[in-house]
């Protein structure tokens, strides 16, 4: 029995004796992925708490228990933490690290030390972000809550005028952006250089395709927001004038630069999530995936077109009508490959054997929620509709259906799917299913009323609202309560499974991709005992059983 990666590790430097330092200095991609997950979900709950605070405040019209300024800081905190600390590193940092090298038969990522450095850069970014929460007054030693109140978009000129801690928040976002770039770079080189012999691009599992497309976005879009934030800092300190209309600058340019990154960033979030979906659907339908190539290429297409459509965030910003028309037109081209993916997944279920284990439940639930999120996105891609719906709760509901109901739900699906792989143990199926149903119901109760409220004209980022909208906010409130309870219950179930779940075999789901062909569970330090030769498609099933089998030396035995 070989030792798992929990028992020993490679370190960036030195050979520390203590387990703690071994974790701190580890370059092992699996350990780094787990550490990302721990930090990210800690922040996830911080952001959820901020959101819940807002829901409590909005339970009734008028001021309840926080004032407008604190409310503005709360939604900024929610947005900044969710976007920069949680969902952008998100699936790539966790499963890209843990699973992707296993899937392509590599021993580690291409630059393991850089990977270690990137993780700590991310931690530095988190610390800077935390430090922007408070102002420390040296004179009397008091801490004053002074987080930025700009919203996560930092729109100029508001971000340049406010005297809250915008600067530290911008620096944090910049550092986190650097970490994101380096992650993408590392994965790109890994996928290009370290695939097992014989595995060409069209033999890669679809999750790897998702990570590959994502890595390109991380690499080529993030620098733009990096420099935008630098320009905003220079503007704030030196008044270079770029976003200041009093000096001839143009506040709308900030929005262009901001969304050049931040729009591709939503595809950066969703593409690896689609990858997880493409892994789960065939594994739990016990058959080969329908239209492998179209799914793979549509990932690339979404990433490519995703660069070209940022302007649909600016339909009411004073952009020229010609640009609006172009952006609206281009935006629809994102919907086509996305739609194709959906039909391919559904077709994969046809004449398969559908096993409704927890990961599959999450995947199917996401098909519903993301379909709503995607189609409502198509609505606001229509310029005339967007002029009415922009910056209302409709938009809020849309992107929460897409981000929470798409990315995060699939993240949860991935957690349930790869849980036995990572820990070698199994959670309680019954409890996990119960958590799914709670979350799914709570989610829809929370967000669906916002479509209606938004259509009726409830603007976003409102601390107080007109009495007409009371009912929608109340339904949302109860949805939020159910949702958060489900969330807590789900994590409780997972932690229980981690502590004293039943040990599993290396391939509990009867899945086909390489990460399920490891000699032991959890995997050993340097992954596969030997690198296999890959001359098979990633999802080959015959009569519901995986076709490809390996012996302990990774030799094909089928």
């Amino acid at each position, binding site marked *: 029995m070989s030792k798992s990666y929990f028992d020993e590790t490679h370190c960036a430097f030195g050979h520390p004796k203590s387990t703690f330092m071994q974790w701190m200095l580890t370059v092992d991609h699996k350990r780094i992925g787990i550490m990302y997950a721990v930090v990210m979900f800690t922040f996830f709950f911080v952001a959820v708490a901020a959101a819940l605070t807002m829901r409590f405040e909005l339970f009734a019209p008028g001021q309840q228990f926080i004032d407008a300024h604190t409310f503005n800081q709360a939604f900024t905190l929610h947005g900044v933490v969710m976007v920069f600390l949680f969902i952008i590193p998100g699936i790539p940092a966790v499963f890209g690290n843990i699973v992707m090298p296993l899937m392509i038969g590599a021993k580690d990522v291409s630059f*393991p030390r850089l990977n270690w450095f990137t993780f700590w850069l991310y931690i530095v970014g988190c610390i800077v972000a935390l430090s922007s929460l408070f102002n420390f007054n040296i004179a009397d030693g008091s801490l004053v809550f002074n987080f930025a109140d700009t919203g996560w978009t930092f729109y100029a000129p508001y971000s340049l005028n406010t005297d809250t801690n915008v600067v530290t928040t911008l620096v944090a976002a910049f550092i986190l952006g650097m970490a994101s770039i380096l992650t993408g770079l590392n994965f790109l080189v890994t996928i290009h250089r370290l695939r097992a012999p014989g595995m060409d691009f069209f033999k890669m599992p679809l999750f790897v395709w998702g990570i590959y497309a994502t890595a390109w976005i991380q690499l080529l879009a993030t*620098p733009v927001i990096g420099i935008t934030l630098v320009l905003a800092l220079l503007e704030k300190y*030196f008044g270079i004038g770029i976003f200041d209309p*009093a000096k001839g600058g143009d506040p709308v340019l900030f929005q262009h630069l901001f969304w050049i990154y931040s729009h591709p960033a939503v595809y950066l979030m969703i593409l690896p999530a689609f990858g997880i979906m493409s892994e789960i659907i065939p594994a739990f339908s016990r058959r080969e995936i329908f239209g492998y190539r179209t799914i793979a290429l549509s990932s690339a297409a979404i990433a490519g077109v995703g660069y070209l459509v940022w302007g649909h965030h600016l339909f009411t910003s004073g952009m020229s009508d010609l640009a609006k028309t172009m952006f609206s037109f281009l935006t629809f081209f994102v919907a086509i490959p996305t739609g194709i993916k959906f039909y391919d997944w559904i077709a994969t279920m046809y004449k398969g054997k559908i096993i409704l284990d927890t990961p599959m439940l999450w995947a199917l639930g996401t098909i519903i929620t993301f379909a709503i999120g995607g189609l409502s996105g198509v609505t606001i891609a229509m310029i005339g509709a967007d002029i009415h719906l922009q910056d209302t709760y409709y938009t809020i509901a849309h992107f929460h259906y897409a981000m929470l109901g798409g990315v995060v739900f699939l993240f949860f699906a991935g957690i349930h799917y790869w849980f036995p792989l990572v820990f070698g143990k199994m959670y309680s199926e019954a409890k996990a299913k119960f958590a799914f149903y709670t979350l799914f119901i709570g989610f829809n109760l929370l967000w669906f009323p916002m479509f209606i409220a938004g259509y009726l004209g409830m603007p976003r980022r409102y601390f107080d609202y007109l009495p007409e909208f009371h009912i929608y906010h109340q339904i949302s409130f109860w949805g939020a309560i159910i949702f958060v309870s489900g969330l807590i219950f789900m994590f409780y179930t997972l932690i229980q499974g981690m502590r004293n779940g039943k040990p599993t075999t290396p391939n509990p789901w009867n899945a086909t991709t390489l990460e399920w062909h490891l000699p032991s569970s959890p995997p050993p330090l340097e992954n596969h005992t030997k690198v296999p030769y890959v001359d098979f498609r990633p999802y080959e099933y015959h009569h519901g059983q995986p076709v490809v089998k390996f012996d302990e030396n990774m030799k094909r035995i089928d």
Partner: protein
Amino acid sequence: MSHEYVPEIAVDREGKEHVVQGWQGDYEGGKLGFWLFMLTEVLMFGAMFMTLTYYFTLHHADFIKASSELDRTLGGVNTVVLLFSALTMGLGLLKMRSGDVKGAKLMIWLTILLAAVFLGVKAQEWTNDYHEGIFLGLDSMQAGGGKSFGEILFFGMYFTMTGLHGFHIIIGIGLMLWLLKRINSGKVSPDHHILHFNIALYWDLVHLIWVFVFPYFYMTGAGVIHG
């Protein structure tokens, strides 16, 4: 516990052997990775050039006027200095690859010297600007300080972009000093020169950025001024 590279062979079903690429000492991977990193720099400066062009379109005449006020002689000197430094860097790498470590080190020192000259000239130029009332934060750079919109923006971007470029030069000097240390300790050698190769690439990128920064700021207002 070490993570040395153990050469590995994967065997396919016909019994043919295939070399497995490990992450250790992956020359091509190192090169690819560094190129990808440079692309992020390209995007970063690309976004700044975009900002610049955006305002150039809006404030055409002001930009040309402001550009004509910059010191083309010092800018030109810097262009030539950087050109020669790119040559010394390239020759240094050639010497390294052909086994002449001593010659390579000499060339790196030469490059560092030229980079320092570049920074000196830049500092002189900024000082001159400052005395002429062109510097970030001065009253004359505020709205209503006697400068048109375009001029304020032009100089704002000028200091931002040449400043960031200068910052890259400083980083470059630091990298080259580190490289010399690695050469002295034998970690970079003719057989194992990926670090040298990548730093040379970085230096060429710094040069490349200047190739666009220079004409954009210094030359658009040169010669006959068109309104």
